[in-house]
């Protein structure tokens, strides 16, 4: 009772201040508390602006379909409106929201059966049966290509396409960990897999992508 009273008070205090203070610097968890307690639309709007691109980005990475990603975006924020109370603060709010997004995206993907053509990367390695890389890497070394080429719009499109070639379970891990920059533990909670499974998928995904990019860049940069 006391903590509910305190939460109410905190909510009021933020609401009273929200006209004066800049809500954009308020942490997610406080904003959600404000929204739950007071239905404060300005708090919801800050959360919306903070996460709209990230939610869409995850949905697009999993489904690879802009129309479905727009639907998922709607579903996720409607879930937030209707079920914000189910966020209990045990994990970061972003982890909760990304988990909702991932689940919605996987539901769409499985409905479309798009994952069926995915290749398996479980055993993917760049070395030969003797465990050596001899003749496989150096001839395609693109690491010293100038930044102007490597960071060009065209190059970013190449890497985005390469990430989209990863199988779904590897693509999701790679996106959350290496593109969004989340920790192994956060990825584990969002995807409901163990931390060693996160690391294992990330490892194979990176090996596959490094190879893919080497193939692309060794051909493509000869033309530049």
């Amino acid at each position, binding site marked *: 009772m006391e903590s509910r009273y305190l939460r109410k008070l905190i909510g009021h205090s933020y609401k009273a201040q929200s006209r004066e203070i800049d809500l954009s610097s308020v942490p997610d968890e406080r904003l959600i508390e404000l929204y739950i307690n007071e239905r404060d639309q300005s708090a919801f709007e800050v959360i919306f602006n903070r996460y709209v691109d990230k939610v869409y*980005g995850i949905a697009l990475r999993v489904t690879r379909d802009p129309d479905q990603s727009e639907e998922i975006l709607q579903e996720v924020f*409607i879930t937030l409106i209707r079920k914000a109370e189910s966020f209990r603060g045990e994990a970061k709010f972003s982890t909760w929201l990304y988990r909702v997004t991932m689940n919605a995206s996987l539901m769409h993907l499985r409905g479309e059966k798009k994952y069926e053509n995915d290749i398996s990367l479980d055993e993917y390695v*760049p070395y030969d049966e003797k465990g050596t890389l001899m003749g*496989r890497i150096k001839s395609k070394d693109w690491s*010293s290509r100038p930044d102007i080429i490597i960071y060009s719009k065209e190059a*970013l499109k190449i*890497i985005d396409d390469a990430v989209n070639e990863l199988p779904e379970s590897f693509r999701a891990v790679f996106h959350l960990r*290496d593109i969004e920059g989340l920790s192994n533990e956060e990825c584990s909670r969002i995807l409901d897999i163990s931390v060693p499974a996160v690391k294992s998928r990330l*490892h194979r995904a990176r090996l596959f992508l490094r190879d893919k990019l080497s193939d692309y860049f060794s051909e493509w940069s000869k033309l530049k």
Partner: protein
Amino acid sequence: MICKGVVENIMGYIDAELDYETLEELEKHLAECPECKSFVLTYKRMLELTGKLRERTFVTPEIRAKLKDLLRSKIDT
């Protein structure tokens, strides 16, 4: 250590999580193997490059406005 050891320990190497003995073996191999040196350089470059994808925005002002209207109606009901 052979090339396979470098490949399978690359995440620990990048994240500075290897034990001293493994690190020493890996660096000794790297100093002698141009293929592995290229492997590590391109691996690091790939990580820099994929990190750049984080800065992109996807949602157009039109989608954003449409969604905001929809959500406003849901909040009001």
